């Protein structure tokens, strides 16, 4: 493992989050994520996984504490700089959040179009990606006509199409069969091999076992624990994952 792998991507320092005047859903959360690592975020339902992911993909500001992303203070980040940061992130939402009036192809192409990629450079990678997630023949279908699993695969394809620096996925395999779940996980691993930091929130132990070199963070009632030493410094060294081809490489 090279020195480059220890580059800090995200740093949380005593972060707390409450919605409105309610009690804190995240309390004193402190950790650092490093470039090129594969992290699982586990915890029971209501433990605060989705809230933490919201902080990670800049959909929410914390009530207190410090968050540094890509070496920049994310809390005081001016609003006009947020899009640039968000383009470095890939997000798989728990509820997919596909755009209902767009086809599967257009949904996957969305991050590229938002980033201003010319149309001529969009068709091939999007087609390859849809083929890779097994939806090559469903590219013109609207989300409403896709099954839950198919929608989830479109959401994953959309999250990874732009080769983000960090992929954040909230229960990304919750609606697919075990075979497809493993296949999607291999896609995440392939992306991870290309240098993307992957953070997957799940309570599927079987899925976690599929990536033995992963680091695990556990949330319990809004507090973070460190069962695998993922949060220690220097970070635990991991073995390289099995080679999987990423579409377009």
């Amino acid at each position: 493992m090279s020195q480059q792998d220890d580059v800090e991507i995200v740093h949380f320092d005593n972060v707390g989050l409450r919605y409105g005047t309610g009690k804190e859903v995240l309390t004193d959360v402190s950790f650092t994520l490093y470039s090129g690592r594969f992290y699982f975020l586990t915890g029971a339902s209501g433990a605060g996984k989705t809230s933490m992911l919201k902080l990670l993909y800049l959909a929410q500001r914390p009530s207190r504490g410090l968050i540094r992303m890509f070496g920049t203070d994310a809390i005081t980040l001016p609003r006009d700089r947020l899009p640039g940061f968000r383009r470095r992130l890939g997000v798989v939402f728990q509820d997919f959040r596909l755009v209902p009036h767009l086809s599967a192809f257009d949904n996957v192409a969305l991050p590229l179009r938002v980033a201003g990629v010319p149309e001529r450079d969009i068709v091939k990678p999007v087609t390859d990606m849809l083929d890779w997630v097994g939806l090559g023949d469903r590219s013109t279908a609207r989300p409403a006509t896709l099954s839950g699993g198919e929608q989830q695969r479109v959401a994953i394809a959309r999250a990874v199409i732009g080769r983000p620096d960090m992929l954040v996925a909230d229960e990304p395999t919750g609606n697919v069969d075990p075979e497809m779940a493993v296949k999607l996980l291999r896609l995440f691993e392939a992306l991870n091999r290309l240098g993307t930091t992957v953070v997957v929130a799940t309570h599927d132990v079987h899925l976690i076992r599929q990536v033995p070199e992963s680091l695990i963070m556990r949330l319990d009632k809004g507090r973070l624990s460190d069962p695998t030493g993922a949060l220690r410094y220097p970070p635990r060294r991991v073995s390289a994952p099995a080679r999987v081809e990423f579409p377009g490489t």
Partner: protein
Amino acid sequence: MTILQTFGQSLRGEWRERNGAESRLLPQGKLSGPMPWVIAIMIGLTVLATTSGLALRNTARAANADVKGGVTVQIVHGAPRERDRQARSALAALELAPGIASARLVPQHELDALVEPWLGTAVGDDVNALPVPALIDLRLTGPVDQARLDSLRALVRQKAPAARVDAQASWLAPVFKAISGLQWLAAGLIGLLAFATVATVLLASRNALGNHRGTIEIVHMLGGTDKQIARIFQRSMAIDAAAGGVGGLLLGVVATSLLGRQFSALGSGMIGSADLGWGDWLIVCCIPIGGVLLAVVTARLSVLGALRRML
């Protein structure tokens, strides 16, 4: 093909591509619903108010040009011979006075024509039995002010004690005042219509933002900028406003033409001078362009303002 042409084509291609890609982010044509119709009505009414205001301005200008520097001397005397003598004497004095561009004793047949609509000229109408005053039509070289009028009165009354000297503009002063009032009314109507257009576009933009909030949040999460999202809304609003603007312009022009014909049929000299010139029609044609700009700027500012409240 020159480098400039190639560059131009490349720019156009990129612009088209970017617009095409962005226009797919939100469903186009469903953003504003009845907006084109509302804008057509607004533009139609604005065209009517503007053409009315311009016609009134033209009327006032024409009338003002007619009476500018004009003074009327009336010799009011019951005895026709004495009236004629005083009139000739006053005319002679006026012709020698400084600052007079022209002085003319209005001939009897013109006076008859003036009073004909009221007194008639048919056989048996005893026009001469009524003491119609003799009139001297004066044109001064400069504007008619009170001092000038007083000195003319003093001069004329030496020769014709029964004379009355009036600036022609003073007769039309109430008319000018009324026209000015109507012009302000037209301007006020245009302002109110612009305000109503802005309010309508604001409501439509907020409604569209509410309807597409989910999609906008996704585009934001994927790194879409406020300006990208605002461009989608302003493009949609521009299309609606352009369609409504053209419709409204046609509506307004047809209504103006019909009204113009009806007023022309009245045959009144003052109304006949209310015709619109090419410059006026150019202003009228700019109204839909102004409407589109107003709608686009309003939509942009409203959308950007609403987006700023999102993270």
